[in-house]
């Protein structure tokens, strides 16, 4: 299987190179070559899928002749984690990268199979170049071959593996890395098409329309991956936080922030033909950040909790980033003439200018995080010392920027495109401003929120923004009700499903704002205490009485678990129990040793969590295991006396001793001997561990009362739902992808714009005069497009080289 895998991987590498080369050779519009290159990309995807399948089968079947399996799994590793173990390895994660890229590239080429004929060859070449880079890395760079043979022991395939790090054995770890990777990787698609657009000088909104969905998918995956990481940190790592401004976390946040900016600013280019340089630069930046994230976890250049060892592929990825940055910058600069805006911003009070402000805030935030993350390197350069920046420094900048973002997220949707008159502004801002004022007042009067001005202003702006969004849904539904005569709920559904992008986006806004409220609440109003309790004792934290009822323990082959049962009382009433514990793992992948090895491996906290809508009670325990360790030492002494055949030992000992001697001579008996030893030790370990049940020693408890954490998870789910709504194909697309000429697409975009303006008018965002102006402008532009079409063939206005296709009758959705 190993050599089959290597061969398939080699073939995949060749396929990637071939697909790119064939695509480029067909750049003059040779239909057959383009089709061929597309098929080779599909084949590339198939080959990598086979590689992944072989590796996963090896993991599932405990084939320890695979080095990757031997190093990252073991027989005892739970089945689900065996599959997840692939991406806990360096080589496996590279394979995952390439594989996801092959899927995304295939999907992108399938979706554009009848479109963008000039652009696609270059986009294919870029995607396959990057794919070949990662595939080649696995083939040619040292130590990252996923099909490497395991180191042989005595000429035999190892009988067991090292196992998966217990810290990584958490359900969210099974999906967190693939999510993040899918996010990173999917940004390759818009990047590749942007490069194609730049090379061929076809820099209208076509490439954006074709890849917008991929950008949104990437954004969703990356965001969800970040969230799972936060959740894992909160429930598994035993420090009580979900975000630490750790370099690796930052590395994933930066492309997400730039991606957010990109998703907004491309709308301005689509609708208004502006910000072209900005969009091209943003996607280059986003993709470079995604590569940087891939690089950081493998380079060891920065100190991180996610300390991945230094290793060999870092420099190569750095080289790729350099090529991407230099090449793209040169390309953008050489195309500056083509990238000029078609229009200017009419008014500062318009949706596009708010988009611009939000973009600047997002990019500013990314710049801050970038600086802070790489500060150790920067300071080493200037002062010779690696100095690093801690969380407070990041908070100082990101807090006001995030609050500004919430404010403008509130303003943006209330404004129409192009311009807004004072009267209509007054109309749409009245209610949200009033609600924000009332909420702020209530918070100041009824809670202590005014001690934390940042948090208070975030809550106020959040109230403003959420009310504004609710008003959007309300007025939109009303307008639709009037138009169609549908009852309310149906009108709401109709409104959202007819304008998925807009209202899906609004739902994402709601989710992100709710999430940020959770972040502000939990970081500003947290109570955090370390307490020592003996069994029977109790303490009071923030109005909650916590009583250490009794110690608990459990033993199995791989770990000791020591914990406690805690009773929680609020206002004199018992509201529940929590069971925090700490697990002590034996080092995996070794022959059974003395019982004391239970304390030589990893130790992980199992947090006792009582989640609530307003507050989480979070408790982690550090049990005092000194007594147990004494018992373990005694048991180990007894055991070694037993196998040394001390006088008066029971029959069992003698039998075991004989078996061990036989195993020393004949390796095939080893597994049997190990099993016996483990069994005996298990019995001894259990007896020793039971002593913990009667301990009177004090355990250390870290108790956190964390307000509004649940809002983060709820907000994230809302945002996910919104993203899915925005991603869902609209009815027109599902009816069958039309072979569209460029003018068709332009026309449809213009109709959409008219429709948007009508909706803005109906919901009161555009006053009658403004609407009349905007509508007239839009209709004039639409007529221009139609005129150009009738006089087409020569194709003025930058749409030359557009091969004529049989045009479908008009199929533009109205309404």
């Amino acid at each position: 299987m190993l050599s089959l895998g290597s061969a398939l991987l080699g073939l995949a590498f060749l396929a990637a190179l071939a697909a790119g080369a064939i695509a480029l050779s067909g750049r003059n519009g040779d239909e057959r070559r383009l089709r061929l290159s597309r098929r080779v990309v599909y084949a590339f995807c198939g080959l990598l899928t086979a590689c992944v399948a072989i590796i996963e089968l090896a993991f599932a079947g405990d084939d320890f002749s695979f080095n990757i399996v031997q190093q990252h799994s073991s027989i005892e590793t739970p089945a689900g984690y065996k599959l997840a173990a692939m991406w806990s390895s360096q080589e496996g994660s590279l394979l995952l990268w390439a594989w996801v890229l092959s899927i995304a590239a295939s999907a992108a080429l399938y979706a554009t199979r009848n479109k963008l004929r000039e652009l696609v060859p270059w986009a294919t070449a870029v995607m396959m170049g990057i794919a070949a880079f990662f595939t080649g890395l696995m083939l040619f760079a040292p130590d990252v071959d996923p099909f490497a043979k395991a180191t042989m022991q005595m000429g035999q395939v190892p009988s067991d593996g090292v196992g998966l790090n217990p810290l990584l054995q958490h359900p969210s770890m099974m999906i967190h890395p693939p999510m993040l990777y899918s996010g990173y990787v999917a940004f390759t698609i818009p990047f590749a098409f942007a490069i194609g657009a730049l090379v061929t000088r076809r820099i209208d909104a076509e490439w954006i329309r074709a890849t917008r969905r991929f950008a949104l998918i990437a954004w969703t995956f990356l965001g969800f991956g970040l969230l799972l990481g936060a959740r894992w940190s909160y429930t598994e790592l035993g420090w009580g936080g979900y975000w630490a401004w750790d370099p690796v976390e930052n590395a994933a946040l930066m492309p997400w922030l730039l991606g957010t900016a990109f998703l907004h600013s491309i709308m301005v280019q689509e609708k208004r033909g502006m910000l072209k340089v900005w969009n091209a630069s943003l996607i280059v930046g986003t993709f470079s950040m995604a590569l940087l994230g891939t690089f950081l976890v493998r380079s060891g250049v920065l100190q991180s909790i996610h300390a991945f060892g230094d290793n060999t592929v870092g420099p190569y990825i750095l080289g790729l980033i350099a090529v991407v940055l230099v090449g793209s910058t040169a390309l953008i600069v050489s195309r500056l003439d083509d990238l000029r805006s078609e229009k200017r911003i009419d008014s500062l009070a318009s949706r596009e200018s708010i988009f611009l402000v939000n973009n600047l805030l997002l990019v500013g935030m990314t710049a801050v995080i970038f600086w802070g993350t790489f500060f150790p390197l920067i300071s080493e350069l200037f002062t010779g010392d690696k100095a690093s920046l801690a969380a407070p420094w990041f908070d100082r900048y990101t807090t006001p920027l995030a609050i500004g973002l919430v404010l403008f997220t509130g303003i943006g949707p209330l404004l129409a495109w192009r311009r807004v008159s004072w009267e209509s502004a007054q109309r749409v801002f009245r209610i949200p401003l009033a609600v924000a004022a009332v909420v702020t007042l209530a918070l100041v009067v009824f809670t202590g929120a005014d001690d934390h001005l940042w948090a208070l202003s975030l809550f106020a702006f959040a109230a403003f923004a959420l009310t504004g969004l609710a008003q959007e849904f309300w007025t939109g539904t009303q307008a639709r009700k009037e138009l169609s005569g549908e009852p309310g709920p149906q009108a709401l559904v109709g409104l959202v499903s007819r304008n998925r992008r807009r209202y899906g986006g609004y739902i994402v806004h709601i989710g992100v704002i709710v999430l940020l409220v959770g972040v502000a609440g939990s970081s500003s109003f947290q109570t955090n205490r370390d307490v020592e309790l003996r069994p029977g004792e109790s303490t009071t934290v923030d109005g909650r009485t916590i009583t250490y009822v009794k110690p608990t323990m459990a033993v199995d082959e791989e770990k000791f678990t020591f914990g406690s049962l805690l009773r929680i009382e609020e206002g004199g009433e018992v509201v529940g129990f929590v069971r925090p514990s700490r697990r002590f793992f034996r080092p995996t992948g070794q022959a059974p040793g003395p019982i004391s090895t239970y304390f030589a491996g990893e130790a992980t906290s199992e947090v006792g969590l009582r989640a609530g809508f307003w507050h989480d009670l979070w408790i982690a325990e550090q049990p005092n295991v000194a007594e147990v360790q004494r018992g373990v030492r005694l048991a180990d002494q007894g055991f070694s006396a037993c196998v040394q055949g001390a006088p008066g030992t029971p029959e069992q000992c003698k039998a075991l001793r004989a078996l061990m001697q036989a195993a020393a001579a004949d390796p095939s008996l080893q597994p049997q001997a190990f099993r016996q030893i483990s069994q005996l030790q298990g019995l001894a370990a259990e007896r020793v561990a039971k002593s913990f049940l009667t301990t009177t020693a004090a355990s250390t408890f870290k108790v956190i009362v964390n307000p509004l954490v649940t809002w983060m998870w709820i907000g994230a789910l809302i945002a996910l739902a919104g993203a899915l709504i925005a991603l869902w194909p609209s009815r027109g697309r599902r009816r069958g992808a039309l072979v569209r000429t460029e003018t068709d697409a332009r026309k449809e975009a213009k109709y959409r714009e008219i429709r948007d303006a009508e909706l803005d008018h109906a919901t009161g965002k555009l006053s009658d005069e403004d609407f009349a102006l905007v509508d007239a402008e839009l209709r004039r532009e639409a007529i221009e497009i139609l005129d150009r079409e009738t006089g087409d063939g020569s194709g003025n206005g930058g749409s030359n080289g557009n091969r004529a296709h049989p045009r479908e009758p008009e199929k533009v959705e109205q309404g």
Partner: protein
Amino acid sequence: MDPQRKRKIRLVVALSVAVLLGVALIYTSFSASTEAREPSELVNAAPGTSAELTGKVVQGSIRRDGNGIAFRVIDRDGKGQSLPVTYQGAVPDPFRGGREIVLTGTVESAGFVGEPETLITKCPSKFTTKSDA
């Protein structure tokens, strides 16, 4: 105001905000950062020196000490003198002998005293290295 001039003003405002942010970033980062030091550099440091200590926990040196723990930290390459460290409060999960840690604190006469909540333990490398042994 003519649009050309308006645009110019906007550009100047935007650029100055960016420059201000940049200057603030640079200024605060150099003043807020703590310097990373290895134990051998701190063993003879004057009491009161604050630093971010990075190094390896010496195997078998961890003792519980009242509410906190005491241990020794040595340079990452394992050479040089080790430094006694005390730390109050709960330690992160991956903390144990042989692991690399990062800890902010100050040098005092009896050794390095860590600030609560600043102890970071590097995870056992997820991606194995050749020099792992």
